[in-house]
C-alpha cells in the first residue's frame, strides 16, 4: 500500500478514535441529567456483555452481529479505531513516552518482550470470562475494558486505581492491557484468525520500523503481522521504505510462498488451533471453578430458604427498582455503575466486600439521605444490560424494592407521644402505604392534641425508602428491609 494511503488511514483512525471518545464522554455526562439519559452503546452492543443477557431484540442483535462480523472481516479494528479504553491507553502511552524511553525496564527493540505475541494470556482470560458468565460470580465485570472506562470517568476510587495502573503500565510498554489481558480484544482476535485477507508484509528492507508496532503484532525479524493482534492502527506502516504492507489472502501466507515469511503450513495451523483451544479451555476451567466456588456464598435475603433463615439475611441488600430476581440481576449486572452515576437522588452505591464476592461492586440502595423517587426511572433507562429491567412507569410504581417497618421503640409517636406523621405525608403511593388505624386524644399544655399512630400496609408499600429518608426521629424509626419483602 502507498505511504500516502497509509497516512490517510492513520489520520482517519485517529479521527474516529477522537470521535468515539468524545461521543462516549458526551454520553456519560448527558446521562447525569435525569431527563437526558442515554444507554451506553459501548456496553449495550458489546458481544461479551450480550452473552450475559442474550435477547432477540433486532436493535440489539444486529449491532452485536455486526461487531462480530467486523472482527471476522477486519480483525481487531474495533480495538484500534473505536474502543474508548484503547484510545485512553494510547493517550497515556503517548504522554508517558519520554518516561518509557528512559525506563531501563521498558519493552523496546528486539527484546523478547516485544516479540510478536502469538498466544496472549488474554485467550485464557477470555475463556475464564465466558465460563464465568454462567455463574453469578463471573469475572466479566472486573475485566471488561469498557466497564472500566465508565468507572474511570465517574472518578470513583476504583476507577482511579485502574487509571493509575494504566499509567504505570504505559511507562513500561505500549498497549499492555490490550496485548496481554483484554478479553474483548481476545474475542475479536480469535475471530480474526478466520481466513480473510489480512495486513501482511510483502516486501521488507529490514529497516525495523515494524518493531514499533504498539500491539506487538508485527516484527521485522520474522516479517509477519499477527492478525489476532493487529488493530489496523497504521501507526508506523507509512514509514516502511519499500511500501511493503498489503492486504494478502491468508491462504497465500499459509502456503509459505516466500513472499511473506512463512511460519505456516498445515502442521503449524493445527498446532495453533490446539494451543488456542487449550488456552481458552484452561481459562474456562479456571473461570468456571472460580465462579462456582465464589458463587456458592450467596447473598442473604435473596436466594433460597437457607439464606433467608440466617441472621445475615436481615441485611440483604436493597436493589434498584424493578429488580426481582437477585441471581438474574447479579449475572446480568456488569457493575458499570452507570446507575450509580445517573441516579438523581444519589441513593445507589456500589457494594464493597460486605455482600461477598457475588455482590462485589453491585449497586445497592441506601436510603439515608433520600428515597427512590416514585416517578423516576433513570436507573432502569441507563442500565445497558437490563440488569435493572426497564418497566413501564406503572409497573415500576408497583414493584416493591423492600418493605418499610416501623420501630416502635424509636418512633416519636409511640415513644414520646408527639404528633408526627412525616412518613405518611411523604409516602408517594396514591393509596398511602402508611396509615393510622389508631387515634388517641391527649392533653397538652397548648390544648388537646390528637395522636395518630402510624402503621404500614404491607401490600401497598413498595419500599421506596422516602419515609426512611425523611423520618425526623433521633434514631430513624422507619426502615426498609429486603428480607420481609421476599417473605411476603
Amino acid at each position, binding site marked *: 500500500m502507498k505511504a500516502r494511503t497509509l497516512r490517510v488511514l492513520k489520520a482517519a483512525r485517529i479521527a474516529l478514535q477522537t470521535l468515539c471518545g468524545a461521543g462516549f464522554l458526551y454520553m456519560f455526562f448527558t446521562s447525569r441529567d435525569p*431527563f437526558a439519559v442515554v444507554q451506553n452503546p459501548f456496553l449495550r452492543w458489546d458481544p461479551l456483555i450480550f452473552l450475559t443477557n442474550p435477547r432477540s431484540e433486532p436493535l440489539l442483535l444486529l449491532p452485536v452481529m455486526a461487531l462480530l462480523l467486523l472482527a471476522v472481516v477486519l480483525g481487531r479494528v474495533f480495538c484500534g479505531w473505536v474502543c474508548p479504553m484503547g484510545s485512553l491507553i494510547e493517550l497515556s502511552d503517548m504522554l508517558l513516552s519520554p518516561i518509557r524511553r528512559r525506563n531501563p525496564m521498558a519493552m523496546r527493540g528486539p527484546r523478547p518482550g516485544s516479540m510478536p505475541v502469538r498466544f496472549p494470556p488474554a485467550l485464557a482470560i477470555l475463556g475464564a470470562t465466558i465460563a464465568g458468565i454462567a455463574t453469578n460470580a463471573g469475572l466479566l465485570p472486573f475485566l471488561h475494558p469498557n466497564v472500566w472506562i465508565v468507572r474511570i470517568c465517574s472518578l470513583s476510587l476504583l476507577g482511579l486505581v485502574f487509571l493509575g495502573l494504566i499509567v504505570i503500565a504505559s511507562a513500561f510498554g505500549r498497549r499492555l492491557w490490550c496485548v496481554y489481558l483484554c478479553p474483548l480484544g481476545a474475542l475479536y482476535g480469535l475471530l480474526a484468525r478466520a481466513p480473510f485477507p489480512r495486513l501482511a508484509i510483502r516486501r521488507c528492507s529490514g529497516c525495523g520500523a515494524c518493531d514499533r508496532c504498539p500491539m506487538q503484532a508485527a516484527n521485522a525479524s520474522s516479517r509477519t503481522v499477527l492478525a489476532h493482534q493487529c488493530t489496523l492502527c497504521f501507526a508506523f506502516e507509512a514509514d516502511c521504505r519499500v511500501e511493503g504492507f498489503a492486504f494478502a489472502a491468508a491462504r497465500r501466507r499459509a502456503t509459505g510462498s516466500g513472499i511473506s515469511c512463512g511460519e505456516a503450513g498445515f502442521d503449524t495451523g493445527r498446532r495453533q488451533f490446539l494451543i488456542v483451544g487449550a488456552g481458552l479451555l484452561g481459562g474456562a476451567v479456571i473461570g468456571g471453578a472460580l465462579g462456582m466456588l465464589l458463587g456458592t456464598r450467596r447473598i442473604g435475603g435473596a436466594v433460597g430458604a437457607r439464606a433467608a433463615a440466617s441472621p445475615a439475611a436481615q441485611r440483604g441488600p436493597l436493589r434498584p427498582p424493578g429488580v426481582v430476581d437477585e441471581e438474574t440481576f447479579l449475572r446480568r449486572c456488569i457493575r458499570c455503575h452507570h446507575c450509580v452515576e445517573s441516579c438523581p437522588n444519589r441513593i445507589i452505591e456500589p457494594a464493597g466486600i460486605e455482600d461477598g464476592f457475588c455482590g462485589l461492586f453491585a449497586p445497592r440502595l441506601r436510603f439515608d439521605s*433520600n428515597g427512590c423517587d416514585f416517578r423516576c426511572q433513570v436507573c432502569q433507562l441507563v442500565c445497558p444490560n437490563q440488569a435493572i429491567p426497564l418497566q413501564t412507569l406503572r409497573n415500576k410504581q408497583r414493584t416493591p424494592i423492600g418493605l418499610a417497618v416501623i420501630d416502635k421503640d424509636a418512633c416519636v409517636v409511640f415513644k414520646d407521644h408527639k404528633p408526627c*406523621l412525616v412518613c405518611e*405525608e411523604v409516602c408517594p403511593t396514591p393509596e398511602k402505604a402508611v396509615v393510622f388505624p389508631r387515634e388517641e386524644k391527649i392533653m397538652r399544655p397548648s390544648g388537646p392534641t390528637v395522636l395518630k399512630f402510624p402503621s404500614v400496609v404491607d401490600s401497598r408499600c413498595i419500599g421506596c425508602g422516602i419515609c426512611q429518608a425523611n423520618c425526623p426521629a433521633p434514631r430513624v424509626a422507619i426502615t426498609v428491609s429486603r428480607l420481609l419483602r421476599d417473605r411476603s
Partner: protein
Amino acid sequence: MTRREFLKSAVASTLFFATRRLFPASLVATPADVGIATGSDYEKAVTAAVDLIGGIRAYVKPGHVVVVKPNIGWNSPPAVKATTDPVVVRTVVHLCFQAGASKVYVFDRSVSNPHLAYKTSGIQRAAEEAGASVFQVDNTNDTKLYSRVAIPGAYYLQNSLVNRYALECDAFINVPVAKHHGQAGLTLALKNLMGITGDQRGKWHWQLDDAIADINRVVRSRLTLIDASAIMLRGGPTGGDPSYLKRLDTFIASSNPVSADVEAAKLFGRSASDLPYIEKAAKAGAGKASGYATRSIDV
C-alpha cells in the same frame, strides 16, 4: 343650558375622564380583602381574582423585587395537582412585570429532588418563559441562601433559618395549591411558607400548627393567591389518583394568608376551627380569620 351650566358640566366630565385614566377601575371601587374568581381560563380568572382585591399595582410597585412562592414540593406532573398549576405561576409572574417589578424570583424547597420536581411540575419552564429567575433549593442549609431569624413571641419556633430572598424582597407573593394534608388537615397559604425555611423541617411536624403560625410571623405574604383549580380531597399532600381531585376552577386572592385559607377551607367543606393553625396564625397577627370583606366573580 346657561353658559355656567355648560362650563360646569364640561369641567366635570373632563375631571371624570381624567380620574378614570389616572386610576384603574379596581381602585375606584373599594377593594375587598378576599377575591374569589372562577373560570376555566386560568389566566383570566387569576387576573380577575387579583383585580377584586385592588389589582396587582396595589401590591407590587414599580422597581420592586418580587418573590413568587408556588408549591413545587413534589416530583409530580401538573395533572396530579400536588403542585401549583404552571399557568397560575406564569400569570402571577406576568402580573408582577406588568406592575413594573424589576425582578421576579420563583423557588420552593422541594421535598422531592428539586431537579425532578421543578421540571415535572412544569413550573420551571412556565416561570422562566415569563421572565422570572427560577432557582432550585435543596436540603443543604447553605448559609449564603439562609439567615437565622429569631422569632419573638413564638409558639414553638424560637428561631429558624429563613430563605434570604423571602426576607429581603420587596413583595412576597404566596401562590399555594389547595390540597389535603394528613397531619395539618389542609395545606393552603399559611403552610406553603414551609418552603422558605431551612433546617430539618421534619421535627416541626411534632408541633406543626404552632410552627406554621410562627413562620408566618417572620415573612408576611403581601399577596396570596390560592390555586383551587382542582382541589385534592384526600391522599395529600402527594396525591396521584385522579379520583382524589375535585375540579372547581376557582382562584382565591387575598391581601392576607389567613383570610385566604379560611375561604379555601370552605371549598373543602371545612371551617377555620377544624384547622388550628388558622386560629393561631390569626392570633399571631398574620391576618383576619373573620370579619373580612369577600367579593367573587365568574369570568
